[in-house]
């Protein structure tokens, strides 16, 4: 007989052997191994139970799986139960002995005792696999309609786990499961709703059919658990069924107003926030309730409210209670709880606006000084500021100062981001540069440096400051001699610079050289000193072990040796660094279309046409596009600019599409600056005073260049879905529709002139929506008065469907034709006219002729042709110049053919409105392109889209390729004799 230890004895033993428990437990396990092999089932069962206890302490029991199954199969509930317990603790769906359990489940499901079946179901929910599920599905189905609510409830809940393992089972069970929604037992009902909730989380659409039943339950239940589950289901369903939110208003309001359970109330608020449309009364009620949660003394509720507010702020734009929220969030940020703090920071990120941004940043900065883990705060500051290209920042000088303060923290993981923003702001905001350069100098030249001989800002910031100092030295406060000197000194002399990484050293060297190159213009008296400084300091960099530092230092040294200390010759070198830098999109290079194909000839040789001359700087031609952009950047007017005195403000000509700054504002900003107080030691404090002074003198207006420079020929990514409208192109003034209709009404053409009568036609604009085109027809008598012409009809080909036509065609004149008939309309189905070319529609003209003498009328039938101009069925295609050039470069196969024409006009005063009128009549979208301001020439681009394909076609019509466009460019050249208009049409076919 094996010695048998009870569970209590074992637990007591473990507790008694504190210190060497594992030894004792090993001994126990050896014992259990013997007990498991015993024939006595209660011994075996106890052994399994003890093992189950030991697994909690971290001991493996995988070796005993077979014994567990054996114990599960015993007849007595008392011995069986530990087996089920152990298997649900330690088995998974992968356990191979799991298949042995199938018969046990079958047996126990049919047991007399509901507890035996219940225990089995509990275990099944844990260890079920697809194989087990397939074998016991019928047993489960019968359990679903068991007479015992206890078992129905367990089965319904267990089924969800089974569906996960064996998805086809859902189909089998669905009808019976759905019936459970009408179960009279509350527990079963809750369980069923629960299972449907989990199923709806996987695929809500499938359960829309249950809405009426679920709604009925929601309205009638008082059960909190059930209400919460239902509210969750409705959150999932209401986005899929537009009528649902309106239905839910009443029960939700009811719950919000009456429930005493906070979990139900919270769930109802969440349901309202997620499923109700903005602006409804119930949303206001829910937000009001949420407010009380936010002010609750329970920190769990506060956290949940904050978390939900994130969704509220995102979904509802109304800012009613935001002021209050803002304070609340700021206090929550201070909470020691990291979870709350993180949520609060995320929320702050969303609710901040320019009016409270400064306050928020100040608070964050304060917390970051106090907290040990302050990166979160700094990260939030940077993220908020950078959003939408600094949309929140109103005072850039202030923000730069903040960045300066942050950069004092040497080991922040955001150091690189701080430096990046520092530079980026200076590049984008010209007005802040004077302040920024002084700040940069201050940051580099801290007094602390003299004492500790180390720079007290983080390395990336050193590089950023160096770059700023070099690039915008012209913005240093005048007189800038001292600043130039100290700048160059700090960049070159401090020993700590040489301890920094190679890239930063290179930056510093080059910045110093740029100071030297700029010195004759801004601080002529210090040329000699700077030159001397360079010559004395650079050699130590030349000896640097970093190759690129050495190389850059050598280059700088050579420049210094070449120009010497001679201000005159140095003046000529300023061209080296004269070009201003603009913000460049990070992916600008990637946007340049790869258009150069080595096999492609550079110039497509076209047949010489007498009237054709190539148009200069054609924007639709990718090769010559560059020249237009050059014009935008002012290269065409380069000679003029060279004569004008150079100044940084004019570095970007105001005609450029990327220029946003105004030079007069900048001047105002400069004037507003006060000289700094030299006594203050800390440069940041100094800069802070300066900021104050600047503010007192009237805050400068900052303008941010939010556009990035993209490469020529690349399409700028449209911001916020808008087609970017650059200042250089303008949409042609297409006359209003009424004017066009009037014009069209005057354009009558003769389509038949015969022996007896003439037919005139006027073609109106097609109705794109109805796909119809209206023709107006008129007849005129030409024959002698003794002949009587009557009953004129026009018979259209069968494919061209005419609304007003009857069997004999469209009657133009009923009865006899007098001098001229009145206008007759015919609405033609325009769908079959697919081909954007001149098209002749063959019709038959039928009429009766009767001479005065003869009795009988003679029927006449003549073929006539209605001619539709090529542009009749085009549709104006609103595009910008850039999208057109994009189209031209990407869809060159659709623009394979080109025709050209030149016309001469008398000079007209308003050519653009004339072209606009033509474009309107011919269904084009027109834009006017910019040309250099000197010339009086004008350029226009007209775009029209061909009809989309349709099923019906007419004889002689073919479908055009999808997306094909017809592009016309017109160049109006001013000649002494008059105006020459050159029109080139590009399309997929002649």
């Amino acid at each position, binding site marked *: 007989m094996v010695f048998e230890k009870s*569970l*209590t004895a074992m*637990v007591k033993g473990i*507790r008694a052997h504190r210190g060497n428990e594992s030894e004792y437990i090993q001994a126990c396990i050896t014992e259990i191994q013997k007990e498991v092999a015993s024939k006595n089932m209660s011994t075996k069962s106890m052994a399994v*139970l003890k093992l*189950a*206890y030991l697994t*909690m*302490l*971290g001991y*493996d029991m*995988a070796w005993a799986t077979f014994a567990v199954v054996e114990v599960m199969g015993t007849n007595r*509930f*008392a011995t069986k*139960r*530990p087996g089920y*317990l152990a298997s649900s*603790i*330690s088995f*998974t769906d*992968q356990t191979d002995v799991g298949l042995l359990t199938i018969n046990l489940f079958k047996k126990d499901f049919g047991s007399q*005792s509901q*507890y035996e079946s219940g*225990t089995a*179901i*509990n275990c099944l*929910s*844990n*260890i079920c696999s697809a194989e087990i599920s397939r074998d016991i599905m019928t047993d489960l189905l019968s359990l679903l309609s068991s007479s015992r609510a*206890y078992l129905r*409830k*367990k089965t319904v*809940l*267990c089924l*969800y*786990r089974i569906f996960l393992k064996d998805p086809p089972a859902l189909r089998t069970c669905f009808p019976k499961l759905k019936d459970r929604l009408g179960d009279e037992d509350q*527990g079963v009902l*809750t*369980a069923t709703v*629960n*299972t449907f909730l*989990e199923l709806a*989380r996987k695929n809500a659409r499938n359960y829309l059919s249950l809405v009426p039943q679920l709604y009925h339950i929601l309205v009638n239940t008082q059960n909190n*658990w059930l209400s*919460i589950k239902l509210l*969750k289901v409705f959150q999932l369903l209401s986005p899929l069924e537009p009528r649902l939110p309106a239905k839910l208003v009443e029960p939700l309001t009811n719950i919000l107003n009456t429930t005493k359970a*906070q*979990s139900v109330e*919270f*769930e109802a608020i969440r349901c309202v926030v997620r499923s109700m449309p903005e602006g409804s009364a119930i949303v206001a009620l829910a937000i009001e309730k949420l407010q009380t949660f936010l002010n609750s003394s329970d*920190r*769990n509720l*506060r*956290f*949940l409210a904050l978390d939900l507010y994130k969704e509220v702020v995102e979904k509802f734009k109304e800012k009613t209670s935001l002021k209050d929220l803002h304070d609340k969030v700021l206090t929550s940020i201070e*909470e*020691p*709880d990291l*979870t*709350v703090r993180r949520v609060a920071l995320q929320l702050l990120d969303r609710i901040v606006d320019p009016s409270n941004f400064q306050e928020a940043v100040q608070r964050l900065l304060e917390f970051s000084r106090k907290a040990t883990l302050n990166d979160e705060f700094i990260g939030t500051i940077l993220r908020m500021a950078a959003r939408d290209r600094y949309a929140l920042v109103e005072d850039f000088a202030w923000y730069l100062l903040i960045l300066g303060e942050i950069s004092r923290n040497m080991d922040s993981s955001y150091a690189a981001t701080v430096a990046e923003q520092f530079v980026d702001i200076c590049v984008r905001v010209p007005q802040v540069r004077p302040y920024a350069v002084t700040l940069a100098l201050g940051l580099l030249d801290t007094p602390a440096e003299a004492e500790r001989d180390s720079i007290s800002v983080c390395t990336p910031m050193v590089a950023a400051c160096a770059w700023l100092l070099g690039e915008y030295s012209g913005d240093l406060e005048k007189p800038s001699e001292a600043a130039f000197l100290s700048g160059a000194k700090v960049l070159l002399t401090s020993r700590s610079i040489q301890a920094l990484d190679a890239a930063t050293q290179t930056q510093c060297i080059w910045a110093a050289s740029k100071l030297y190159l700029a010195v004759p213009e801004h601080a002529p008296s210090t040329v000699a000193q700077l030159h001397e400084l360079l010559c004395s300091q650079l050699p130590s960099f030349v000896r640097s072990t970093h190759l690129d530092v050495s190389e850059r230092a050598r280059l700088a040294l050579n420049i210094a040796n070449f120009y010497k200390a001679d201000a005159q010759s140095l003046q000529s070198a300023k061209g080296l660094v004269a070009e201003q830098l603009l913000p460049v999109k990070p992916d600008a290079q990637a946007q340049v279309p790869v258009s150069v194909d080595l096999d492609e000839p550079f110039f497509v040789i076209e047949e010489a046409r007498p009237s054709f001359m190539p148009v200069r700087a054609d924007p639709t031609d990718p090769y010559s596009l560059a020249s237009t952009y050059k014009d935008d950047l002012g290269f065409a007017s380069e000679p003029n600019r060279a004569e004008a005195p150079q100044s940084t403000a004019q570095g970007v000509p105001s005609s450029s599409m990327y220029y946003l700054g105004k030079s007069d504002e900048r001047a105002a900003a400069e004037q507003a600056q006060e000289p700094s107080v030299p006594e203050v030691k800390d440069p940041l404090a100094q800069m802070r005073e300066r900021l104050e002074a600047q503010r007192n003198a009237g805050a400068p207006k900052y303008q941010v260049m939010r556009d990035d420079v993209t490469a020529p020929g690349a399409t700028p990514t449209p911001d916020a879905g808008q087609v970017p409208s650059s200042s250089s192109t303008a949409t042609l003034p297409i006359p209003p529709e009424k004017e066009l209709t009037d014009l069209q009404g005057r354009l009558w053409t003769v389509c038949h002139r015969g022996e007896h009568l003439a037919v005139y036609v006027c073609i109106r604009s097609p109705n794109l929506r109805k796909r119809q085109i209206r023709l107006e027809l008129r007849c005129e008598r030409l024959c002698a008065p003794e002949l009587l012409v009557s009953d004129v009809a026009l018979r259209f080909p069968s494919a061209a469907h005419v609304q007003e036509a009857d069997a004999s065609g469209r009657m133009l004149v009923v009865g006899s034709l007098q001098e001229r008939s009145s206008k007759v309309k015919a609405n033609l189905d325009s769908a079959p006219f697919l081909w954007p070319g001149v098209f002749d529609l063959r019709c038959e003209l039928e009429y009766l002729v009767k001479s005065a003498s003869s009795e009988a009328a003679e029927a006449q039938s003549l073929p006539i042709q209605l001619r539709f101009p090529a542009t009749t069925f085009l549709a104006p295609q609103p595009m910008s110049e850039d999208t057109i050039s994009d189209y031209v470069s990407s869809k060159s196969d659709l623009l394979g053919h080109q025709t050209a024409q030149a016309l001469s006009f008398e000079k007209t005063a308003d050519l653009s409105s004339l072209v606009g009128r033509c474009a309107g009549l011919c269904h084009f979208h027109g834009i006017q392109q910019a040309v250099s301001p000197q010339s009086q020439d004008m350029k226009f681009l007209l775009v029209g889209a061909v009809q989309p394909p349709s099923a019906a076609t007419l004889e002689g019509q073919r479908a055009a390729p999808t997306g094909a466009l017809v592009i016309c460019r017109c160049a109006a050249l001013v000649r002494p004799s008059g105006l020459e208009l050159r029109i080139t049409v590009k399309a997929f076919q002649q």
Partner: protein
Amino acid sequence: MINFILLISRQGKTRLKKWFVPCPERDQFRTIKEVSSLILNRSPKVCNFLEWRDYKLCYKRYASLFFIACIEQNDNELLALEMVHHFVECLDRYFGNVCELDLIFNFHKAYYILDEILISGELQESSKRAVLHHISEQDPLI
């Protein structure tokens, strides 16, 4: 849906572990270690929810025991806490002023009670009386 329930003592000892989603034992131990170190280190002043991997942990301390429920992102945290409390109340009524030692020596009873309250991670019985009734009916069978 609850993914797992853990009862951890202040010393970091597991008193009950129940996974409702199949999980290999090795991962269970790793999770227990990770979760208990997370929760035991939280100050009593902070809130009872924390995000962990893709889940949320809702926990509450009763005397020397931490009751931890791991729920999914879109579950109701308050409901999870209520569920935990419901479990604690059932234990309390069953053992009569329950303490940690009761759960150590009768760990299987705690499991049986839990099995009457939760199945496949969902609440099946919200009435304490019904739970105790079912348990007391099963007790004589043992």
